């Protein structure tokens, strides 16, 4: 999957999880800190599970330690790198 598709998939999962969980998402941009995006930690667990389902990768379950990204842009890049 190319980088554009991964970005689209990530953004679409964020929107779906927010809608399902009754959360209001902040306007999505690369600079948006994840802590301020409107999702809580359980929502992020659902995001990671959903992305594993659609992209078949889980960057947080790799052998090497991965720090949780700070911004939405870093989050998308992490999936780009892992899926590559």
């Amino acid at each position: 999957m190319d980088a554009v598709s991964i970005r689209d998939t990530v953004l679409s999962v964020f929107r779906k999880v927010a809608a399902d969980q009754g959360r209001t998402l902040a306007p999505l941009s690369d600079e948006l800190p994840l802590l301020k995006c409107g999702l809580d930690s359980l929502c992020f667990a659902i995001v990671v599970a959903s992305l594993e389902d659609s992209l078949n990768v889980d960057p947080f379950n790799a052998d090497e330690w991965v720090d949780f990204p700070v911004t939405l842009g870093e989050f998308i890049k992490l999936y780009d790198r892992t899926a590559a």
Partner: protein
Amino acid sequence: MRNVIVTGASRGLGLEISRTIAAAGYRVLAIARAPTDELKEAARVLVGSGGAIEFRTCDLSDPPQISPLVRSLRADFGPFYGLVNNAGAGTHGVLGNMRDLDIEGLIRLNVLSPILLTKYVTRSMMIERGGRIVNIASVVGFTGYSGLSVYGATKASLIGFTRSLAREIGQLGITVNAIAPGFIDTAMTEELNQSQREQIMRRSALRRMADAIDVARSVEFLLGEAGRNITGTVLTVDAGNTA
């Protein structure tokens, strides 16, 4: 058909649970190190009945096997409805004499593996926004029994895990409960001598031991419609031994 993973499914309680819930119409994804003739026979008699038992090999004492197992089950059978964390060892021993490696192995199999398996299985349940987790604990987790201190610690830990996880994922429609069987006649309790058995029965309100089928029916209850509003609790099945 709803998929329910049952660990330690090849014998004892796990086999009885698998037979019972498969007969109730679930597709049991039976996990064990190796299939037994009893499990194969149970799968055979179910053919055409509406339920099913599908066997997969996994050594749950080796945690790195768990994530690939869940991925392959999901690919082969689809989303999970239920998980019954039944696999466990009941190693008996005076703590002071137990080998460190045996203590560690018991904690790995009885605590770490069910927690990891639950982590990966609930990911699928979170996406589906529903599911049932049943952890098989033991009355030893809250009453204590000489020679079972490590086993008791592992079962108490499953109860703590059950209660907190129930609160964590309840809002997604996933229930998490534990069943605490008393002493049941299975291979795990064969070390008990006749006098110990009689003592257990004498001390039980109903003057008998519970059977594996009682535990299996309790699992079926928690998986079914009747269990939809029960979460974060421990169901004791011990013929009144701890009453």
